[in-house]
């Protein structure tokens, strides 16, 4: 890959060189911090290869996820928009202020957190977020027990997420207790932070489809502040089996033909059962089945003497049968 190097610029001093200047009495502590801050800003870093290859790499990681067609398209759109806005800004054109707060709707285990992590990385590489880390929180992390506690807790989480993404799971639970509930205070603090820190923080509200729609309906102010909505549909049986294959490959296991059929049957059963349907479309079910299969296989094999490499890798129907 050709390195797309910019012409070398005067190398900024390293953090350690700044300290030497301080020790020699050439700069004051005040100036030392100012230099460090300039050093830590991405544009002051070494004349690095253009960030594009990194973004492509992460995009490939995203594409490698099973299913999620609409989500992938939207993430590509966001990335394209971000990079064009940056190019426009370089040309001195008016660049649209980007509001990238998002709503993720879908059942547990449909890839919401995974996509949030990848988005964080993409936005860091594109220079939108300074760090791109994801801070995952839920109601208990935001809502306090007495007046004033909630705003304090919420601000704390906001601060942890600064430069990255604050991912609020089951966000509707903030509106659970009605007007007297401290959840309201958490929402207000979040909204205020969104106005104040448009640039260095992205909020993602996540949760079940139905509950999220109700939550946004009841809080019209929030709706307009979260322009991007991503739906995470349940995985189809075929997609779940593809995920299973991927998981097995990574762990260097495989299913024999009958075990594979059995896994498919099992997933379909869960899907048909109205009591488990909400959780059946998710990768977690598959992972649990496979991890249990790996444990069962181990207890089946541990008593035996000579084992071939093949036996050590293969999961048979008996390993997948029954419940825990």
């Amino acid at each position, binding site marked *: 890959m050709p390195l797309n190097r910019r012409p070398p610029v005067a190398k900024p001093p390293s*953090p350690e060189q*700044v*300290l*030497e200047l*301080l*020790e*020699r*009495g*050439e*700069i*004051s*502590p*005040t100036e*030392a*911090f*100012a230099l*460090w*801050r300039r050093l830590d800003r991405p544009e002051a870093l070494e004349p690095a290869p253009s960030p594009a290859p990194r973004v492509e790499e992460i995009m490939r990681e995203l594409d490698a996820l099973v299913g999620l067609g609409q989500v992938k398209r939207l993430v590509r759109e966001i990335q394209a928009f971000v990079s064009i806005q940056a190019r426009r800004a370089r040309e001195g054109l008016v660049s649209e202020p980007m509001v990238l707060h998002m709503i993720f709707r879908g059942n547990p285990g449909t890839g919401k957190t995974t996509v949030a992590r990848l988005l964080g990385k993409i936005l860091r590489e594109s220079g939108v977020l*300074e760090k791109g880390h994801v801070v995952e929180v839920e109601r208990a992390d935001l809502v306090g027990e007495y007046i004033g506690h909630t705003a304090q807790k919420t*601000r*704390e989480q906001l*601060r942890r997420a*600064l*430069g990255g993404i604050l991912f609020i799971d089951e966000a509707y639970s903030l509106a659970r207790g009605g007007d007297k509930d401290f959840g309201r205070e958490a929402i207000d603090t979040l909204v205020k932070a969104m106005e104040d820190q448009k640039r260095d923080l992205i909020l993602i509200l996540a949760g079940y489809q139905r509950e999220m729609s109700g939550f946004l309906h009841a809080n019209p102010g929030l709706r307009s502040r979260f322009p991007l909505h991503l739906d995470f549909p349940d995985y189809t049986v075929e997609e779940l089996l593809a995920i299973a294959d991927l998981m097995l490959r990574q762990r260097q296991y495989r299913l024999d033909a009958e075990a594979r059929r059995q896994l498919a049957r099992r997933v379909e059963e869960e899907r048909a059962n109205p009591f488990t349907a909400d959780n059946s479309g998710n990768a977690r079910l598959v992972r649990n089945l496979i991890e249990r299969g790996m444990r069962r296989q181990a207890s089946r094999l541990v008593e035996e003497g000579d084992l071939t490499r093949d036996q050590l890798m293969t999961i048979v129907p008996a390993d997948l049968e029954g419940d825990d």
Partner: protein
Amino acid sequence: MRECLIIGKPNAGKTLFFLNFAQYLGLRHLWLAAGGPSLPLDRARRELVDDRPHRTLDLNRVVVRVPAGKGRKSTVLTDTAGLGDDINADPAIRQAMARTLRAIREAELILHLVDVAALPGSVSAPGPVDREVAAFARHRGGYAVLANKMDLPEARDGLSRLGEVLPGEPVIPISARLGTGFPRVRAFVRRWL
């Protein structure tokens, strides 16, 4: 183990806070970075603390245990040399400041002491270096401003003026001498362990 760093301008009260807060968390003796036998805290207070600036030049560390959940978690509490706004004429003090800066770069948790009772223009009055420290530290893990010397009458005005120097930072008012505000500091530290 995580390190909790106490920083601030000379004479902001860092060492007295270091000793009294460590005592509040249950510590009775400490060993100094310079060596020597263990020192009971009341003697340490007599020997390490007075009202001259730049008394502390070494990074003095103690391990303290903070209640967390059902058990307790250990953290290193570190006292540092004060940071002035300007270039200091004494090479030993400049070296000490460089040590402080190096520690700031690595710390997970920073308690930034400011002297809100200082008269404007005095050596410990909140100034440019406080602003720079805050701008540098606020994005790195835990960071809180402790408005010290609240036991002095001048502190009320000083606290209200602090917003001009450090707008938007979370501030915990304390008195290192009397131990007021320590429960809030402990709660803050605990959250970051």
